């Protein structure tokens, strides 16, 4: 799996899914339309500022609240490469994997990160490196099947690949 490297955007604790994608914008599940409002109620200018491959760094309980899968979809569609947080809310965690957004829990990296730092992530080895500070932190590596789901772009594409594979062999 490719290495992720990007500029970071820092958020605090308890960033809820209403802040990530407010319900008033849930008139669509089209990713590029959701991306226009990504993180809007936490930082109204985020969608304009964020660049492809950037990384979100946040405190504890990221993604709490509503089960809306539109939240990780909005982040992924905004071309954010990865979310690193002290901890994630349960439903968001599963949703992110299911739609193919890499996420990592790494409290130590979060504590020392400042907006604008450059951070690199190695998902397979579970390593987070703050390039600016020249520090490397250990996170929990993704098991292979989760890497495969993320690599496929999410659970649906993963299953689809499996079904097509099966029909070729069947």
């Amino acid at each position: 799996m490719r290495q992720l490297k990007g500029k970071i955007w820092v958020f605090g604790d308890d960033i809820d899914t209403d802040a990530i994608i407010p319900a008033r914008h849930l008139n669509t599940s089209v990713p590029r339309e959701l991306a226009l409002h990504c993180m809007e109620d936490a930082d109204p200018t985020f969608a304009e500022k964020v660049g492809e491959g950037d990384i979100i760094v946040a405190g504890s309980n990221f993604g709490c609240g509503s089960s809306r899968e539109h939240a990780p979809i909005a982040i992924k569609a905004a071309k954010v490469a990865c979310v690193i947080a002290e901890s994630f809310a349960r439903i968001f965690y599963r949703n992110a994997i299911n739609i193919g957004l890499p996420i990592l829990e790494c409290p130590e990296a979060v504590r020392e990160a400042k907006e604008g730092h450059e951070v690199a992530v190695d998902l397979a080895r579970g390593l987070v490196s703050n390039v600016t500070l020249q520090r490397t932190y250990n996170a929990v590596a993704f098991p292979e099947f989760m890497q495969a789901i993320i690599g496929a772009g999410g659970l649906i594409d993963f299953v689809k690949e499996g079904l097509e594979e099966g029909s070729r062999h069947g």
Partner: protein
Amino acid sequence: MGLTLAEKILSQRVGHTVKAGQIVIAPVDVALTQDGTGPLAVRQLQKIGLEKVANPDNTILYIDHAAPSPRRELSNDHVLLREFAHKTGCRLSDVGAGVCHQLIAENYGAPGRVIIGADSHTCTAGALAAFATGMGSTDVAMGMALGKTWFRVPESIQVRITGKLPVGVYAKDIILYLIGMLGADGATYKALEFTGDAIATMPMAERLTLSNMAVEAGAKVGLIASDTVTKAYLEEQGRSGDYKPLSADEDAQYQKTMELDVSSLEPILAAPHTVDNTHTVSDLVGTPIDQVFIGSCTNGRLEDLAIVADIMKGGHVAPGVRCIVVPASRQVFVAALQKGYIETLVEAGAIILAPGCGPCVGVHEGILGDGEVSLNTSNRNFQGRLGNPQAFIYLGSPAVAAASALTGVITDPREVLNHAAGR
């Protein structure tokens, strides 16, 4: 070694003993989506050409979040849901029937069932000893299609609630107090299991309020053992056959046990912008409000409307305040009409909306203006939740909401109730 209620339900459903920490594949007894999450679930299934559901009679697509629809994009999503239900034979709960979690309690929730829903408050049915939990659209889509899903069996936190609630204090105050203690992530990945003598005597309407808000502390489920109250509720719903006794073993292993004596608990509110930002009503008395919303899967039941009607009878909503009341289901609405609560509330100046989620999620009905303040009986006060990030939301019990609607400022309901008792 004994089993927690979470372990017991999952053990029974997978057919062998499972313990906290294990990953299991469990059958899905009931699967649900709502109109915010359902269209995405349907599109995910369409993407892999899997337009079928394993158990059509126990798969329900609810239309409650934007019902009736305020815009054509959402109307088109509703059409998509209706077409999918028609094609697959699954159930559709259309505009006006009510909030999914209330309807699950009325029609599908039962001890020992595994219920997954693409809505975080699916945990409400834990009050009926169902392993009911919220997931995302893709997870629920796969559960609908395959009739099974995977879970990590959660560790349980036992919450022993004892003592008699004082007048004017309710389950809503208990759960807000607990969330204040636990924090918004204090029970992440865990099961909350509510026990103790205060639960034994608690009516089902209030138990549902407790379980409903378990997710606001991050919990996967909020469980209550089944007992005579559960049995009576299921009988009332014409489903006595769905009852079975189910409780944790005496020697169950909990990750921790919390004790709460509620006999001196005060009304509790959550202040903007997080649910764990809790305060006693006395800290907030006098805070001006522009709107009151009474309803939702947390507090839109008949018993809630009875409390509100009792407080508002003969009074009038304060000038400049909107008081929006939304019965949680058609059953609740009809019963409230028959009992005269609706007439009382309309005469007192309240606005009654069709059963559904109403203002709670901020897509229609009751969106706030910049700087405005709403006092809600619902479960979330996140910034922007009522459709405007420049607004402020407090959460409290129906009694706090009703008393405050009359005065236009946050008011201690015990003043009104004690006054009424002395009349």
